[in-house]
């Protein structure tokens, strides 16, 4: 990562997750998204409310990546998964479980971790 400036609301979200105050934005029709969003891409609503992320999410799909990019070479093999936290889906590194034991439907929490290769922050899904 050569960027030195933070990435606005992405880094602000990670700060909030680290403080145990993760959130997403939700429109009046219940569509949920991670920030930054100024408009709901589903229904066009511009009334988006910051809403606390539920404490537990459910894994929807996952993969164990064996061939990684250079930025993840020392992390590999690692698990990337998508989990549903209420109406918002979160993609993260899934940790706290052996890759072979990961199952669709398992319960995960969300936290911020470090990438082993670069030390950069990453969204981590933690097996519960």
């Amino acid at each position, binding site marked *: 990562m050569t960027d030195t400036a933070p*990435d606005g609301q*992405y880094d602000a979200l990670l700060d909030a997750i680290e403080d145990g105050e993760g959130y997403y934005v939700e429109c009046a029709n219940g569509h949920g*998204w*991670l920030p930054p969003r100024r408009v709901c*891409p589903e229904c066009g609503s511009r009334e988006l409310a910051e809403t606390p992320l539920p404490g537990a999410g459910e894994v*929807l*799909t*996952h*993969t*164990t*990546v*064996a*061939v*990684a*990019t*250079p*930025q*993840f*070479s020392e*992390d590999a093999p*690692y698990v*990337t*998964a*998508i989990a549903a936290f209420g109406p918002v*889906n*979160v*993609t*993260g*590194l899934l940790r706290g479980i052996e890759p072979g034991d990961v199952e*669709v439907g398992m319960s995960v929490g969300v936290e911020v971790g470090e*990438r082993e290769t670069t030390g*950069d922050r*990453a*969204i981590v899904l933690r097996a519960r």
Partner: protein
Amino acid sequence: MMQPRVAGVGLTPFGKHSERTGRDLFAEAGLAALDDSGVDPDDVEALYYGNFMGELAEHQGHQAPLMAEAVGLDVPATRYEAACASSGAAVREAVRALRSGEADVLLVGGEERMTNIGTAGATDALSIAADDLYEIRAGMTFPGAYALMARSYFREYGGSREDLAHIAVKNHDHALPNEYAQLRKEISVEDALGAPTVADPLGLYDACPITDGASTAVLVSADYAERHDLDAPVAVTGTGQGGDRMALADRKYFARTPAADDATAEAYDDAGIGPDDVDVAEVHDCFTIAEVLALESLGFYEPGEAITAAREGETHATGDLPVNLSGGLKAKGHPVGATGVAQVVSIVKVLQGQTSWAEEVGDARVGVAHNAGGTVASATVHVLEVVE
């Protein structure tokens, strides 16, 4: 409407040409298409050019004028970027310009140099077709993204790694007689299942190779073709494009590709055809599972039903609907920015009877080309027909 014609096509061999510059690759393909077309190069009015990772692979932005110059053209030139659908998007814009009457002769093409930056570099460069903040930083790779889709597909509809292996075997078989293909090697289902895992459930043989190459076509108005008595029997009769949310997590479906559904509906409507009219297809099989999703979006199969098509032989040259006779991205190779036009080139050759599979395929009159970007946040579909 008078539909634009394909007057000439050109390809470089697809493969590992690490030491060849992008401009040299494009020049080879571009000059081949001009020669094939019989069009006076002075009549070419613009270049529509597709390329994805030129900044990363060659530290070269602003590539389109460079490529026009490489084929000896002093014309306006613009690069189109839609990840792996870059040159599909370029074809679409060229077709629209020709239909509007604003142009009579256009060169459309694509080029990608990838092997010079190695497997790790190419994996990195390909990954940026995903959402940087919320996918790449969570370890998403290009194979990883399709692995997430494959797992969802298996869970929702059924299917197995063995079903996917049959797709790889079929496309390798199709590539055997294709002198432009990168992987001209017969493989077995056992080979595919025994290959190293890239991102489970996908293995090495589920993935297209990393490829250098270029592709071009000379597209002309029907009026120009007639005035110059060109031998250009194939027309682009339908074009469509669709879009979807960038990040897989933000999609309604992980095991369907609505962008390609939309592109298909538009292209079929444009051409006045339906899926039953199609004789042959080139689809975007960057991974084996992607061929399944493409066949369902193109309406050849209902969602959940294309997974067994290759295993049943339906999509082989000897089957009812030959798919990826060129070998597809899987075996022909996938120089990403060149793929969309290369698919059009392959269809044109089949419709003109210039395929080693001519005997098996018989008289094909209608073909479609399906080109997808990222995890199908972009898709283009083109219908080509023999019109004279």
